[in-house]
């Protein structure tokens, strides 16, 4: 038996060993044969075409300790027009040597014209393609996406990283909402269907965050300024750094009391007056005093007045943004989602008309501000100085009788 089995076993081992090499390394990709794509821009072109701009890393020009020279630009952009995004991406193989490597893409910029025509087509491509990571940042350009991708973001050498830093650090201060693909798609697929994306503007070749783009069912319907974005952030429970300025009673223009809001909680109640929806928003915010009016003394009365005025200002800002949302028909505050979760029976009957119901809803807000800490000193520095501490009058050029 042994003599029969041994050649068979040898043959099997040889066959298995040979199959190892039959793969021929078919999907082997060397790093020096690839173009690392870090940004994609989509713009509306003429005749229903789409203009796709790719931002490719030029590794030798990326300044690094590993030997990058950093003499030229760290990236280059290439543009192709086609009937669809996927056709355009495929077409790049005809214009750029080395194959495209999309897995490290970190930024997708939609031109505002493209965004106004609807992003559903692009969303499906980015969700379906297995090459893209789901944490890429979605932003809208105020103008053309290719201008955003070509702009300088010094001191960050790579434009897409620079844009990402800008958006992320702005979002940390609650002046933007999370604009990553995963969050945007989650908002898009929720019952409110109103994602919000960062809006980027190019001025004099430099980038700046211009606010946010509002969407309704994948179509851009309006924009919000960063200040309005702060109010929108307040409409969703969360944390951040929101600054509220309360003008001082004195007339000086740039003097005010500053509050730094760092956490807030939203409660809602709904009722119906006839067919009209009435939403009551109860917002509890807490924060610290960042600056007091010159000569201010933080006593009980002042504290209460700061509290009252702060509540009134926040309330005004909330009202403004809610009116804007209603006029644009974008439920970026997530009210629909709240109704869906809290009144599922009602939603089953009226959910289909939510956009219309929200636009005509009566939304009221009440704000309760809690001032937590007054900082290290309870008074403005001027209060600490009195006449006794001052130098003798003779020393200040006055005659002593």
């Amino acid at each position, binding site marked *: 038996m042994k003599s029969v089995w041994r050649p068979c076993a040898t043959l099997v081992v040889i066959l298995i060993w040979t199959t190892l090499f039959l793969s021929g390394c078919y999907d082997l*990709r060397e790093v020096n044969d690839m173009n690392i794509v870090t940004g994609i821009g989509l713009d509306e072109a003429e005749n229903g075409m789409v203009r796709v701009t790719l931002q490719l890393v030029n590794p030798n020009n990326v300044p690094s300790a590993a030997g990058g020279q950093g003499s030229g630009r760290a990236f280059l952009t290439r543009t192709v027009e086609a009937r669809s995004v996927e056709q355009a991406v495929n077409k790049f193989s005809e214009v750029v040597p080395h194959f495209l490597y999309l897995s490290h893409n970190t930024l997708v910029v939609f031109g505002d014209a493209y965004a106004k025509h609807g992003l559903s087509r692009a969303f499906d491509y980015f969700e379906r393609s297995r090459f893209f990571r789901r944490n890429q940042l979605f932003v809208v350009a105020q103008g053309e996406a290719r201008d955003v991708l070509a702009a300088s973001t010094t001191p960050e050498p790579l434009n897409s990283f620079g844009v990402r830093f800008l958006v992320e650090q702005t979002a940390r201060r609650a002046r933007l909402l999370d604009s990553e693909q995963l969050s945007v798609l989650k908002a898009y697929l929720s019952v409110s269907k109103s994602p919000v994306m960062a809006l980027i503007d190019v001025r004099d070749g430099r980038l700046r965050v211009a606010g946010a783009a509002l969407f309704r069912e994948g179509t851009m319907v309006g924009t919000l300024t960063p200040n309005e974005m702060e109010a929108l952030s307040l409409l969703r429970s969360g944390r951040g750094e929101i600054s509220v300025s309360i003008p001082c009673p004195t007339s000086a223009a740039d003097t005010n009391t500053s509050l730094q809001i760092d956490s807030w909680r939203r409660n809602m109640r709904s009722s119906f007056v006839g067919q009209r929806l009435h939403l009551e928003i109860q917002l509890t915010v807490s924060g610290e005093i960042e600056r007091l009016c010159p000569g201010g003394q933080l006593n009980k009365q002042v504290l209460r007045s700061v509290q009252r005025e702060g509540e009134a200002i926040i309330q005004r800002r909330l009202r403004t943004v809610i009116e804007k949302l209603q006029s644009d028909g974008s439920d970026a505050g997530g009210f629909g989602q709240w109704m869906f979760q809290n009144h599922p029976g009602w939603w089953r009957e009226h959910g289909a008309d939510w956009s219309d119901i929200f636009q005509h809803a009566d939304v009221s807000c009440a704000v309760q501000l809690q001032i937590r800490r007054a900082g290290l000193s309870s008074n403005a520095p001027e209060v600490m100085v009195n006449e006794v501490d001052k130098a003798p009058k003779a020393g200040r050029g006055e005659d002593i009788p």
Partner: protein
Amino acid sequence: MFHKRKGKKMRHMSLSLESNSQYGSLGGAELGPDSPVPDTLSAMAQSIQEDWDRCADLQTRIVDVRGTKVLLVWIRGSVNLSRLELSVLTPLTEIYRERPRLEHIQWALRSCRLNPLRTRREVNQMIADGGVVLYVDGASVALSVDSGDAPGRSVDKAENEPTLYGPQEGFVESLDVNLALLRKRIRSPHLKVESRRVGEYSHSEVSIVYVDNIVKPQLVEEARRRISGLSVDTMSDIYKLMELVTDVPKTVFPMVEETERPDRVVGGLMQGRIALMVDGAPSCFMVPVQFVTLLASADDYYMNFILTLFIRLLRHMAFWLSLLLPSLYVALLTYNQDLMPTPLLISVASQHRGIPLPTVLEALVMMVSFELLREAGLRLPRAVGQSVSIVGTLIIGDAAVRAGLVSAGMVIVVAATGMASFALPVYGFVNPNRQLQYLFVLVAGLFGLVGIVTLGYLLVVHLVSLRSFGVPYMGPIAPLNFHDLKDTFVRAPWYAMDRRPEQMETVNPRRGRTRRPGPTKQSTGENP
């Protein structure tokens, strides 16, 4: 019928072989090895001359002691001549009796250890062992005089297993000295040493060392059985013995724990293991062995047990790094670039611009160069070896990168792999890893991470299937034994390790009953 007869013949042959292996074939051709010692001096001298024909280092000397001729035989170099002169020749000259007989001479040499040798085989064995054979004309036995002084070095530092703390002594090439080093540490009659001769020509002494009221008796029996079945020409080192008594010869992983430190052997004996020692070998090995034991260093037992945790984890990491690091690098750079952080990918891409070789070949070239460098540094004389290392390091580290042949990242990876392999406490682990890493790199180059995972899976299957003298190699991790985990990734404090490893199935599982140290309530003045 034919088969039956053949079987008988075979059995007879195996018996004769076994007897040969045990006693050697040094006997004379005509009379046979077991024939008694000749009864005249001339016949004795002749028989020795026949047996030791063409052995220039054999020394024979006939001394006339007041009319009785005495023959002295020894091997040059193995005998301390001044001791021979002092303990044998001088007492012989002081015999005043005319024609002294054997018993008179024995009385005169009473300060020496004398043993009677009755057969020619015994006589030849004693000469070969480096003893002095003394034959008195007309006697029916020869005498062995213990004045052997085989050349050898004195006890020195353990060069291959240095530690910062603890004793520094290492074994030497003499079995007696090595056993004495163990006896110095275990001063108890329970430390047993069973010796037997192995090797048809070398007649080397192989000892099984164990503590009889700790070790599992079947383990000692198994060791006896494996050693008694050996039939070899020579057995001058432990490596041959290792290979011949192991459970699984076809594995690259060490199936025994080799050491040259007596303290480590003592630790092993106290765990219920046995040590096998060979005369002439400067190290010994212990069985059974487990994977985790091989990643423990003697230092772990001398330093604070809390600090040991980090070092042990580092060593476990070093083992897997030395095996997998180059292959992971190749897989990430060739197939799975999406798993790298973007800045790292950009940095690697910039390093790889213009490098002519694919990453897998680049890795293989670097690894081979590194191995060459290591071998060259190891084999050459120390003075030359250092210069080779410097030149090699310059070429591999700097010039190759500047010339654009390899990337700086690859140099770092290969160097880190080498460093990780040097961090392993047992050298027996270094070699398997440095060979297996080629296989992993090849598979990474062909299949990427999928290949590494598959081969890693096969490796783990192989590891868990191994047994060392019946004890699972991957124990106490697989099969899991919570109690034995006290001395694996962590080294529990001594007061907590009050029991010996359960997987060794010792007859005395209790190691001690020391309480956790600390002040008692009485000493702190608290009321009980």
